[in-house]
């Protein structure tokens, strides 16, 4: 039976009509075989526009619909819904892009119109071969996996838990808190970081809906939106979390001291330790590389003194599978390694420190008890803070790390407050974009901070004058004055930029998400979807998506939680049916498709010796379809018949 095709040519205001002679295209379409009606309209996507389609389906008994307008990315769903509401299966619709692929790229009207006719003709030919398809609905597991227990992950977890959902919060360190736990004060309010963070950490520990899985990581993540399985590896602390009461006696008595990672190696910790006093969970962990029992089989002082018998050297790594419906990655960042920029002397000259090391000096529970001091124990009388270390630099990272200007100024304030030293800030631009940030800059100016506009060229210890003897000399051009200056100081602080975590590539692979060119996780849309990814059900938040300060991290954590909630409260998700299908009769069992599938959506049936597509996982990318040497795989709505019809028609028009 012949099809009854309706063709609708949109003007899109002047976007299309300016270049394409729509009347001409309509006349052309009307004359094509099987076309029952062809119309044009100003804005097909508008309500009246959609009404035209619905009316024609009902009154003219249309069996297929073609809309010639913009890109399917814009309005394919709009028109599919309209078609469905008109009483026709939504997959009996085809969109012809005569805007982005025609009007917007043609050099003149003649070319644009001919092109539009060819595109429409091809769509008309194709749509006749299309079959009705049904979307599949799958339930959504309401549990959520949050990976990363820094401020972002904590925010996301609390929002979700408060709404009644069960959250698994997985953190790879022995404690949650992330980088924020290591900061002294936060800009611009100069709130004590621990004071505002620890209440949230305690909330997480106490919340009935949050299962905190610390000192663990995710080794595998499989499934599809609403139905994921996460394999968690729980690393052994060698301390029983149930029995330990956090008294700290074991740490006190342990004879082994090693450099503390939490203190950037500037302070010490024991072999059995908590990273910091307010750690959550408040349970120590044994570092088996340095513990005397593990290395030499002796000591066991911790066992002797523990009143609860919580030390257990026999603990093993454990694996656990969690079923969740959505996942939020809040895995944070790493800092740029300042030793790469040799001219600043980090690692070579004494008293050249990074911003994080400075934070640890300034912190009351840091290695110096909160005193800013030089290697010789004295207070500095002058400090230089160098901006843009490793950022905005083609030799290292091209992007701006966003937070360094503000934290540099915060450090300047702390130096003033604690030492009264003279502070020099060497900057290229001052980026004070947030609420209260510009005011904070003014405050620092009022405090007599010396701002020198010029990126530091180098830090040297070679004195050229008596005043420079024994000092670190920062050499920079003061660009506002147009003079090269040598400023002797006691201490140099390098404001290092953010980088993606070293294991970001592995994480991205585990969760099948993409990364942008700079290595941070890729958001679905930089403006309109900053916390979603191209993978449905997986969200990203915080600095793992790009450098950002605490307010933005918290905002993204909450946003990701909202996105997850939106999915969960829908109770079920709709899966697109335009997936690949394997004809088992034609399948030769060669398994070429299995390795190629980026979504691990194909399984091999060992009894029947054929491959099968899991249509919940399949994203319809088409790779297996193209690769199958037997031609056994077809993609729904992209069948050979449909594609060939389109191509043949387009070629015929091209003459």
């Amino acid at each position, binding site marked *: 039976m012949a099809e009854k095709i309706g063709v609708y040519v949109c003007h899109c205001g002047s976007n299309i009509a300016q270049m394409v002679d729509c009347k001409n295209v309509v006349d052309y379409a009307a004359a094509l075989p099987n076309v029952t009606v062809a119309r044009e309209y100003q804005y097909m996507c508008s309500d009246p526009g959609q009404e035209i389609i619905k009316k024609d389906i009902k009154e003219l008994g249309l069996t297929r619909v073609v809309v010639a307008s913009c890109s399917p990315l814009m309005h394919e769903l709009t028109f599919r819904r309209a078609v469905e509401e008109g009483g026709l299966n939504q997959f009996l619709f085809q969109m012809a892009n005569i805007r982005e692929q025609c009007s917007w790229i043609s050099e003149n009207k003649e070319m644009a119109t001919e092109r539009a006719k060819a595109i429409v003709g091809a769509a008309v030919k194709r749509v006749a071969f299309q079959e009705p398809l049904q979307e599949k609905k799958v339930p959504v597991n309401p549990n959520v996996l949050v990976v990363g227990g820094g401020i972002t992950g904590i925010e996301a977890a609390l929002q979700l838990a408060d709404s009644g959902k069960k959250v698994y919060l997985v953190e790879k360190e022995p404690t949650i808190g992330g980088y924020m736990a290591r900061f002294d004060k936060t800009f611009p309010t100069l709130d004590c970081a621990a004071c505002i963070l620890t209440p949230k950490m305690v909330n997480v520990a106490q919340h009935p809906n949050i299962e905190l899985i610390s000192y663990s990581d995710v080794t595998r993540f499989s499934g599809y939106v609403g139905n994921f399985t996460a394999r968690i590896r729980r690393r052994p602390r060698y301390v029983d979390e149930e029995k330990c009461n956090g008294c700290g006696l074991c740490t006190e008595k342990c004879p082994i001291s090693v450099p503390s990672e939490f203190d950037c190696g500037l302070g010490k910790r024991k072999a059995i330790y908590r990273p910091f006093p307010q750690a959550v969970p408040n349970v120590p962990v044994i570092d088996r590389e340095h513990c005397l029992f593990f290395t030499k089989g002796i000591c066991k002082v911790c066992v002797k003194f523990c009143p609860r018998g919580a030390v257990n050297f026999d603990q093993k790594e454990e694996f656990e599978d969690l079923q969740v419906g959505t996942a939020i990655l809040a895995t944070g960042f790493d800092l740029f390694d300042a030793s790469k920029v*040799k*001219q600043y002397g980090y690692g*070579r000259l004494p008293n050249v420190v990074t911003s994080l090391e400075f934070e640890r000096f300034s912190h009351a529970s840091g290695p110096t008890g909160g005193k800013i001091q030089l290697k010789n124990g004295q207070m500095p009388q002058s400090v230089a803070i160098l901006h843009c270390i490793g950022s905005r630099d083609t030799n290292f990272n091209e992007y701006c790390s966003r937070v360094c200007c503000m934290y540099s100024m915060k450090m300047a304030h702390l130096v003033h407050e604690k030492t009264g030293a003279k502070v020099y800030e060497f900057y290229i631009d001052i980026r004070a974009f947030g609420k209260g940030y510009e005011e904070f800059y003014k405050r620092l100016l009022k405090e007599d901070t010396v701002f020198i506009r010029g990126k530091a060229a*180098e830090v*040297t*210890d*070679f004195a*050229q004058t008596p005043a420079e003897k024994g000092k670190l000399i920062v050499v920079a051009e003061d660009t506002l004055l147009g003079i090269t200056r040598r400023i002797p100081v006691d201490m140099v602080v390098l404001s290092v930029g953010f980088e993606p975590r070293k294991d970001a590539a592995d994480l991205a692979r585990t969760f099948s998400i993409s990364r942008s060119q700079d290595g941070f996780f890729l958001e679905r849309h930089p403006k309109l979807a900053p916390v979603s990814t191209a993978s449905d059900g997986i969200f990203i938040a915080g600095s793992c998506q790009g450098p950002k300060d605490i307010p933005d991290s918290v905002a993204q954590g909450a946003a990701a939680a909202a996105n997850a909630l939106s999915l969960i409260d829908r109770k079920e998700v709709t899966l697109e049916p335009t997936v690949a299908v394997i004809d088992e009769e034609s399948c030769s069992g060669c398994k070429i498709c299995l390795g190629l599938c980026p979504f691990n959506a194909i399984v091999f049936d060992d009894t029947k010796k054929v491959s099968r597509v899991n249509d919940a996982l399949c994203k319809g990318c088409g790779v297996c379809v193209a690769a199958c040497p037997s031609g056994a795989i077809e993609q729904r709505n992209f069948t050979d018949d449909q594609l060939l019809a389109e191509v043949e028609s387009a070629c015929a028009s091209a003459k």
Partner: protein
Amino acid sequence: MESRMEFTYYPGCSLEGMNKAYDQSARLVSKSLGIDLKELNDWNCCGASAYMSIRELRAHLLSARNLAIAEREKKDLAVVCPACYTNLTKTNHYMGEDAKLRRTVGSALKAANLQYMGTVKVRHLLDVIVSEIGESEVRAKVTKPLSGLKTAPYYGCQFTRPLGDYDDKEFPTMLDTLLKWLGAEPVNFPLKAKCCGGILMTTNESVALSLVRSLLDCATQNGGEAIATICPLCHMTLEAYQGNVNKAFSTSFKVPMFYFTQLMGLAFGFSKKELGINQELISSKALLERRLEAR
């Protein structure tokens, strides 16, 4: 390319006269180590910095001609002067990256029946010795270790900047390493890769002199008894102008200068005459007597 120990050798113009001793000692120690250096046939000047200041394309042509002749030998090209290294490597690099330059220079070479396919690799002799020959072979040849002679290793600018990726561009260490192998003691020298101002000596002497002064200050303040060089221009600048520096700044520098190959030669047991040390402007006699001859 053939065996890594065979190189075509490009001495450069300054090794013909002023820095003859560098050429002498380089050939001697290379032979000892089994590095075969065959002088590049009829080589022309690399252009230093002066030629590029007047003509761009013809400056590239100078290097391209050398590279084209070298390519015939099917060996890598060894140089001892960083300026020669930079010019040859720059042309090599730019011709590889920039199609227009490649075409222009390529068609010019044709006029002399020459062609360059981009296969020559240019190496500084220090890099060859440290990276290819290596510690055990060098130490094996040391018969008269340099008894902890406190030497300031001076690299200058163009050894690693801009295209010498074989060592660090801010704080290279190859010469420090070699000095240790020879039994000398490389002193901490923060200005080891800073500019000597050599090309300004005739055009802007006062600026050049203050640069030289800083280097001499730094080397001696850190305990350096002598300065080792890897660049003929740096060597000449620091050597010939110590007197002028003293006059201008009322200092009294008298720091003996050695090409790194001369120090190698001394450690390998060659005589001062063979190594051209008798051609020096600042006498190292007292230093060597005090530190080395009493061995």
